[in-house]
């Protein structure tokens, strides 16, 4: 059956390999080199300067500021999103009324473009047209903050939007994992007198551990990005208080024409993502449960 197979293999592989090598592999590979150069774009070619970009980066307070903001998202997004998603997923697999409706509506924000969500929420947070502050005033908070205009509240406000969007996605993921847990385990535990809370901690959590780990890595990678939502809602402001690595490197490269430096930040971002994935996998590794 594999006679003349190369007559099929070659034409089937060449187009996608060509596109992929050109537009994905080549840029990634040359990023490694460009991060070691000074490059102001235009006609001058990149000039090799070793690790100077990385040295400059480590002394750049704007880099540390952006990294610090990513660190805030790395704490707020995973904890709140995953706890809410787990909680809702568990409840919705218990046969509560309207569970189908909840499942459909919670997931919807995931489908909207981050830009549309950013615009929607900048309306909600808006000090004059927004509904959030007038709601807060109605319940007695006389002087609510200007959420996106105050360095103290801006990260929390953006986190809230990211969580709002992401919860439904992780919930659906967890529901799929929970539904794969064999019923017999729950039945046996209930005969032994276990309550809902015990079922959740002793059966559900261990049985969906792999999915939980994947979800953790996913949302942490998401927290290292935050480009579209930041660009739309705050553009890094006020005065860089919500700038993250992705918007910082974009501005350095495309507005400041520091292409070598911008690429060095991007390469650093890659190592951060890699370190996060490896650390989460190591910390959360458990022997897979057999059933």
């Amino acid at each position, binding site marked *: 059956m594999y006679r003349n197979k190369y007559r099929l293999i070659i034409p089937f592989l060449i187009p996608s390999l060509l596109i*992929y090598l050109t537009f994905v592999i080549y840029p990634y590979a040359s990023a490694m080199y460009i991060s070691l150069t000074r490059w102001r774009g235009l006609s001058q070619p990149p000039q090799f300067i070793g690790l100077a970009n990385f040295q400059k980066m480590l002394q750049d307070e704007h880099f540390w500021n952006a990294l610090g903001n990513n660190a805030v998202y790395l704490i707020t997004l995973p904890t709140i999103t995953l706890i809410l998603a787990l909680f809702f997923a568990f409840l919705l697999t218990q046969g509560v009324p309207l569970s189908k409706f*909840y499942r459909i509506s919670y997931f919807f924000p995931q489908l909207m473009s*981050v830009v549309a969500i950013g615009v929607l929420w900048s309306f909600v947070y808006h000090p004059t047209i927004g509904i959030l502050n007038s709601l807060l005033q109605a319940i007695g908070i006389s002087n609510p903050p200007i959420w996106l205009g105050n360095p103290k509240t801006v990260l929390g406000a953006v986190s809230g939007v990211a969580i709002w969007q992401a919860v439904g996605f992780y919930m659906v993921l967890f529901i799929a994992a929970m539904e794969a847990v064999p019923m017999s385990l729950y039945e046996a535990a209930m005969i032994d007198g276990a309550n809902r809370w015990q079922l959740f901690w002793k059966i559900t959590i261990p049985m969906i551990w792999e999915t939980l780990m994947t979800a953790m890595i996913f949302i942490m990678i998401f927290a290292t990005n935050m480009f579209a939502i930041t660009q739309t809602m705050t553009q890094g402001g006020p005065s860089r208080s919500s700038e993250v690595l992705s918007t910082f490197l974009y501005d350095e*490269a495309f507005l400041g024409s520091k292409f070598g430096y911008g690429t060095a930040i991007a390469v650093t971002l890659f190592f951060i993502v890699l370190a996060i994935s490896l650390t989460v996998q190591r910390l959360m590794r458990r022997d897979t449960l057999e059933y």
Partner: protein
Amino acid sequence: MTTTVKSSSVTGNQQSAGARLSGIAINLFLAIWAVIVIFPMGWLLYSSLKTDQEIFFSPWTLPASPQWDNFVRAWQDAHIGDYFLNSFIVVLPSLALILILSAMTAYVLARFPFPGNRFIFYLFLAGMLFPVFMALIPLFFLVKDLHLLNTFQGLILVYVAFSLPFSVFFMTGFFKSLPSELHEAAIIDGANQYQVFFKIMLPLAQAGLVSIAIFNFLGMWNQYLLPVVLMTDAKRYLLTQGLAFMLHQQYYKNDWSGLFAAVALIMIPTLIVYVVFQGQIQKGITVGALKG
């Protein structure tokens, strides 16, 4: 949705009052989150029919009389209609190319042993390891040097390239799971390899193709970073860019009701498609996370 744990029958009468109380709390929690998710969108939808005056001075109330003109201004004056068209011009051909190219590549990688097969498979996998940001700057100059900056073709090629890793990976798994007997039988019946692929394997792979079509469509439709870098000509902005542009222009021209209408215009089609195909869409989207 079929596996449900019914605990009330086990615990008996003694706890039923407490169980009822926790039942109320549970339903309350769920309902509150539903309001938090739905209300901002609902508010946006009805506010998009208000006048600027109403938006500013009575943010909660319904429109006194629906201002359909907001939608006309958003669609025409703010060019949301053009941005829609641009998005379709980029996303639909990209999607078609991704489906056919990833199916062909995955089929070969899944079904035909040859030297280098594993290497190519892992080469595609490697593309999923890196954040797009790392490629961004070299990619911009590459596209520029190829004279593809600000062209639809350029963006299509880039979208296809960046969608291939996951699509190839997913479809390879899918083709491996299909039975090989049909393939063998067809060859014995005198079909050539191309006929086997297009007439037998591709139709069999339909479920997998639907999943990656949904996954990639939404990813590309909502993509923001790549067009921001590669499509800087305002006439060719995609929908996400156009909306962001409109928001940032808001500082100069105060057409809030038009902006509300623009967001509504973007939200409504997604909402309709989702309500009709929600089961498949949830599966298609989460498929990306279950690759591990």
